[in-house]
């Protein structure tokens, strides 16, 4: 037995030494970390774009109708939409559609480009479009609500689709036109509703410039289709033959991979991004503050069903107490911009009513906040430095942000400190994200920070977010503060009914809404989150930037951003050599 034991030990040792040498062997074989990537791999480095920051988990499915959890790129790279949206010009660009327009107030006609084929060779026809929009009739479909105001989608001939409306929501319709993917009827029509809504669709057949090449737990590889219609019709060719989209586990890992040139584009929020840009390790849209384009507004959402947040004067005082400048500088290191008093993104600046803002807008001003509180009847009766409710009861609010969102956690502390200066007692709490989502939906909170809505073709999306009614038991994505104002909601609906090319009409409608917004302050704009994007130039150059001659498209492959310039960015890239 003794010898046997010893023998076992020595074998184990031999195995270990073997393993160790094998490892070092492997090491020199594939090069050191960050060494010559591409060696031994199947994808040539100079034809491959490595990107990350678009998804946090394994690529789940390739079903373009599941716009919230399909692998990023399913819509945009494989499946396409009728239009794209150009945020710089603020207008739709024809994509699958050659043109589109209102033939009367409730009829919209789309003319498709001729000669577009699906990846399997079948031509794209108007029937495919009508079929794709018709899928929204399935009750559990995520865009089922479209059919509460759309009444029919019909193929008139091979290249003409006619949409007729019960109620024309022009603003919303434009977002739909560049948001809704078109799927092939001849592949999808044999599927059950269940499969349409929830199928994994791992052999996607689209009209797009890419097809699915392979997928694993942490990445998707897209491969360019050389017979893509856009090469001829749009004179565009996406530069990378392969796109490898890596789902990244953590920021530290991303920084390491960027530093080693393994990644070409990271759409992650990296807290130290400004120093990476300054040291020329990566490039971003601007080479100085704010470095990034703006993508969405972060709001402070007060629960207006609770006292004293149901009081507009209190909300205005709270708004004036927030030191956004300190958040922008201290927390974000100037990576973001403070929001305007209306919270509208810079891309929508033309809709800000300057005169109204000058009159009713707010700035950070602790004294003004204190005065507003005092005028409204909030007094510090017990002398502890914090005001009490009007009825004399103690006032203490909780500001909740998800645990682990370090930038928001820091921002919450700044907000609490600002509120303290104004005499409002605000404490911070950091619950688990899912628990917080649930509380937020049920209205079980005092204050939260939220940035649910992204840049879109119209500020209408922001006003819907602010004012949507009626308030439900469970608020899913909008009006978390449960603010109720019939008049405001009516105005928002009116704005929705203004044609999108009627800028003057939109401005007039927005101005009326802004008047209510600035007086009532249902939610408080904080800062504009950036379109986080940092690129390396070792393999690909000509990234979008504000420099002269550089592309001005969105440098992001985020969900829904491929239609807002992300795809065009791919066509502008140039190999480094």
């Amino acid at each position, binding site marked *: 037995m003794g010898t046997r034991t010893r023998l076992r030990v020595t074998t*184990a040792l031999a195995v270990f030494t073997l393993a160790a040498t094998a490892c070092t062997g492997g090491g020199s074989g594939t090069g050191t970390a960050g060494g010559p990537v591409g060696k031994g791999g199947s994808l040539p480095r100079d034809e491959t774009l490595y990107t990350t920051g678009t998804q946090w988990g394994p690529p789940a499915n390739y079903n373009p109708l599941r716009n919230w959890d399909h692998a990023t790129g399913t819509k945009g790279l494989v499946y396409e939409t009728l239009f794209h949206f150009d945020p710089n010009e603020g207008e739709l660009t024809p994509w699958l559609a050659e043109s589109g327009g209102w033939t009367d107030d409730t009829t919209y006609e789309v003319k498709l480009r001729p000669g577009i084929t699906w990846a399997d060779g079948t031509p794209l026809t108007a029937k495919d479009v009508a079929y794709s929009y018709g899928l929204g009739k399935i009750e559990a479909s995520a865009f089922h609500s479209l059919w509460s105001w759309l009444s029919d989608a019909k193929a008139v001939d091979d290249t003409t689709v006619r949409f007729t409306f019960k109620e024309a929501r022009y603003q919303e319709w434009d977002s739909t036109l560049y948001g809704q993917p078109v799927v092939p009827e001849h592949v999808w029509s044999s599927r059950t509703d269940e499969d349409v809504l929830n199928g994994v669709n791992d052999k996607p057949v689209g009209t797009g410039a890419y097809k699915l090449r392979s997928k694993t737990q942490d990445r998707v590889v897209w491969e360019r289709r050389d017979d893509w219609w856009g090469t001829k019709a749009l004179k565009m060719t996406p530069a990378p033959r392969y796109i*490898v989209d890596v789902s990244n586990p953590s920021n530290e890992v991303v920084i390491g991979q960027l530093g080693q040139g393994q990644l070409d584009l990271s759409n992650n929020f990296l807290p130290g991004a400004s120093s990476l840009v300054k040291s020329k390790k990566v490039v971003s849209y601007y080479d100085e503050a704010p470095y990034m384009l703006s993508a969405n507004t972060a709001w402070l959402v007060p629960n207006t069903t609770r006292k004293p947040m149901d009081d507009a004067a209190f909300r205005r005082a709270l708004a004036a107490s927030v030191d956004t400048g300190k958040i922008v500088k201290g927390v974000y290191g100037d990576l973001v911009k403070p929001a305007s008093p209306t919270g509208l993104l810079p891309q929508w600046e033309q809709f800000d009513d300057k005169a109204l803002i000058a009159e009713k807008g707010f700035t950070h001003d602790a004294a003004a906040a204190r005065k507003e509180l005092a005028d409204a009847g909030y007094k510090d009766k017990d002398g502890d430095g914090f005001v009490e409710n009007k009825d004399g009861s103690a006032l203490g609010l909780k500001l909740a942000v998800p645990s682990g969102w370090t930038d928001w956690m820091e921002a919450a502390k700044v907000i609490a400190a600002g509120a303290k200066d104004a005499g409002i007692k605000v404490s911070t709490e950091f619950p688990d994200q*899912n628990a917080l989502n649930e509380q937020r939906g049920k209205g079980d909170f005092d204050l939260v920070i939220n940035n649910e809505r992204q840049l879109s073709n119209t500020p209408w999306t922001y006003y819907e977010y602010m004012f949507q009614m009626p308030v439900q038991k469970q608020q899913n994505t909008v009006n978390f503060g449960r603010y109720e104002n019939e008049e405001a909601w009516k105005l928002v609906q009116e704005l929705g009914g203004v044609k999108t090319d009627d800028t003057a009409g939109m401005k007039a409608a927005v101005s009326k809404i802004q008047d209510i917004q600035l007086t009532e302050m249902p939610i408080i704009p904080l800062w504009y989150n950036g379109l986080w994007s940092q690129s390396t130039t070792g393999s690909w150059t000509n990234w979008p930037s504000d420099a002269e001659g550089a592309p001005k498209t969105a440098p992001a492959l985020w969900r829904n951003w491929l239609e807002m310039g992300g795809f065009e960015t791919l066509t502008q890239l140039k190999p480094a050599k």
Partner: protein
Amino acid sequence: MRRYFARKLLIYALTFVVAVTVNWMIPRFMPGDPVSAMVARARVSQPEAAEAMRTYYNNLFGFDEPLWQQYLHFWGALLQGDFGISIFVFPTPVGDVLLDALPYTLGLMIPAVLLSWFVGNWIGALSARRKVLDNTVLPAGYLLTAMPYMWIAVILAWALGAKAGWFPISGGYSLDIQPGPSADFALDALHHWVLPFLSLFLVALGGWAIGMRNMIIYELESDYASYLSALGAPQRLIRRYAFRNAVLPQVTGLALQLGVLVAGALVTEIVFAYPGLGSLILAAIQNQDFFLLQGAFLFIVIGVLIANFLIDIVYVVVDPRTRTGMAGGTS
């Protein structure tokens, strides 16, 4: 022999039932509602549409049934090898998601646990007899065991990965490699495997070495050793007996280690962004993926039971007292 194993199997079966039940219960009593999370992620703002989706998914996942029915269905599906559908990686079956990650975890943990056990015991046994080794290995061992996984992992990543540049510090394989049965992939995966392996190996190594060293010294000073010595038996023989006795507690320790095999690498996997079960469990928790979480825990439970069963068999071989028990002497 048959009675011994029959009794063991019964105990394992009972443990399994209890573990599965607890496993089923825990996520259902966690705060948060996965269907709400899903509907919220779908960004459906129109109330009627959201309600329709909620109903649909509640029905799809069976959350609209009474609890006892959900429990029975859970067992029914489980016995058919169906772990349900992942919410996080919708609509991939949980089993597939787990099986993708399992090789990485096992490939990391089995060598780490077994090698650290063999090498640790060997070093421990040697250092019990050699002053020099005792003075060097032991303090190092204490240092290693006292170090948290995370700490040593970060140090290794920094020193051998970031500074020396010998090993990649994240992922299971390079960005440009396709997993598959190729030499390129094997080498690349091995290259990525080294640092996480080392972090696990080094920490465990110290513990085994210290344990073994102390046990051997204890055995060498025990009565039977002195008696053998007085009888004039050669030191070699005494040491052999001492080793055989000392190794028994270590075998028990190994059983415990093997049991937590799957879960043990959680921290390491997160530090090195290694695509194993540990990372998956974290993601499942963060995404409130009931089914994935249950599946992962079930894997752990099954792992613990199998490991223990194996060790039971090993005991029969290494510990004569078990055999005596089976022969019907005492039980």
